[in-house]
């Protein structure tokens, strides 16, 4: 099921997109491509432009410059709307409708048969609640209904805006299982989040927006390499001889018993060999690679004066 109408096989192409709200520039020269079956995390602080980017892709809002194609069609066209699915950040369905009624409305709008509704509700674990009014549901249940409508009609591209917010760990696990299934079926997924720890292991690529600019767009491994963040080594001295240890290896004394060192990834083995050579002086070595939060802060952080 490859699409020949878009170049390079990308099912979603965003090219030098700019969007302003009045004088405020919300998106600046954003370019991004998604291949079929690819899961891309879209990270950024609140107000970095994640939702705005999604709304341009959905055709809900018109960009000031740049171009978007979804499976070869322009945003907002019937073909594009058939190809794309969306999970809004705060899904609010009509309180007076039941889950079954709400989903069957979406099925009718999407041109899908009514027979798909019940299995989808089953898939997201709402089979029992389907007949009750959405007004009586919990936030997590409404989020699941949002996910069910994303699954309608096997979209080519799915945009999930903060899908994990408000979910308990078990539901979150199920969410990523569904995301994995969709990707396996060839759907390209753009998943926004403001916590890298939430999406890291479950995505193929990470794109980071900072004040409307795309500052990173790569795999986690490459980003880690590019950031060049130091590895932290924590040495514990035997018999509280931290002063002696400090004199030997340098670094910083943390307390009476330990010393902390930072080194670049490529110096790591060298350092460890020297520490091992100290023999009995070192009781323990703890090694911590840069955390995802450190990495995210490195790319998304605002420069402090």
């Amino acid at each position: 099921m490859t699409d020949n109408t878009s170049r390079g096989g990308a099912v979603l192409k965003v090219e030098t997109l700019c969007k302003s709200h009045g004088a405020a520039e919300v998106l600046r020269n954003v370019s991004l491509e998604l291949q079929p079956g690819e899961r891309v995390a879209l990270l950024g602080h609140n107000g970095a432009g994640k939702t705005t980017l999604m709304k341009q892709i959905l055709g809900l809002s018109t960009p000031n410059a740049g171009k978007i194609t979804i499976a070869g069609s322009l945003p907002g066209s019937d073909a594009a709307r058939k190809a794309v699915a969306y999970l809004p950040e705060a899904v609010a369905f009509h309180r007076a409708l039941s889950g079954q009624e709400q989903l069957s409305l979406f099925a009718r709008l999407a041109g899908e048969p009514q027979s798909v509704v019940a299995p989808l509700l089953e898939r997201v674990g709402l089979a029992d609640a389907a007949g009750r009014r959405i007004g009586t549901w919990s936030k997590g249940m409404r989020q699941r209904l949002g996910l069910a409508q994303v699954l309608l009609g096997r979209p080519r591209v799915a945009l999930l805006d903060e899908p994990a917010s408000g979910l308990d760990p078990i539901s979150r696990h199920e969410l990523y299982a569904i995301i994995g299934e969709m990707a396996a079926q060839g759907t390209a997924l753009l998943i926004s989040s403001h916590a890298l720890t939430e999406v890291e292991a479950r995505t193929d690529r990470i794109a980071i927006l900072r004040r409307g600019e795309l500052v990173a767009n790569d795999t986690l491994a490459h980003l880690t390499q590019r950031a060049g963040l130091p590895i932290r080594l924590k040495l514990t001295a035997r018999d509280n001889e931290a002063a002696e240890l400090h004199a030997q290896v340098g670094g910083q004394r943390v307390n009476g018993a330990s010393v902390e060192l930072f080194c670049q990834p490529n110096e790591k083995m060298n350092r460890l060999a020297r520490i091992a050579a100290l023999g009995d002086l070192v009781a323990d070595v703890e090694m911590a690679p840069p955390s995802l939060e450190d990495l995210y802060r490195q790319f998304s952080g605002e420069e402090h004066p």
Partner: protein
Amino acid sequence: MITRIFAVASTELRIARRNLWVLTASLIMLLFALALTFAGAAPTGALGVDLLTVSVASMTTLSVYLAPLLALMMAFDAIAGDVERGGLALMLTYPVSRGEVLLGKFLAHLGTLAFAMTLGFGTAGAAAVLTGGAGVESLIALARLMGTSVLLGGAFLALGYMVSALAKSATAAAGLSAGLWLVFVVLYDLSLLGAIVFDDGGFFTRSVFPWLLALNPADAFRLWNVAGAEGVALATGMTGAADALPAWVAPASLILWPPLALVLARGAFGRIEP
């Protein structure tokens, strides 16, 4: 296209039923129509017309106020409320056009209004027929009242959608709708009245005023019902203005208002970025 409009309409109808809108609107119409019919039973003999005629005349005056009010109350939340809840953004990511969404809502709301009006006027009319008798003319007048009330409601539904699309929030839309009602139903007539008094039977009163009157859907509604039945005209005392205009003007105005207002609403709706 038709299936999508009906999908939206049937959902909206369900919501209107669950929100008790259908029940509320029907009850209001029924109570007011019955009350007016029996309050109007007294002057029958004096005018020499049957009870149904008097009843239709009273209900015409009632409908001028109530039809726009009910329509605006149903319409003001239709777009602004959906934008606030975030439901509109999601719906518009589906292959459904804004025009289809608007028409779907319009059909559902108009159906609700038509149901309430038919029930209210119909019951009151039947009661009048049973207690005071009716003729062919007064029965036609009753049917005309029902039809024109639905048209008037349709015009104000569409105006309500327009206001709902222009407003920044559902609360603002409610306020604007109240203003709209006040202008069309009360202030417009008052300012025309003021102009007539000032003009004192001059060119304005004879040639401009009737046209201005017909331009307002609420007044066009009144004119059409008055011009249609002599008895009703007698009972409402609005014969002068109705006679000054060609017979087609008021019906044309009232029939054109709903589609024109829908076009305006669609225009306002198109500017929204949900």
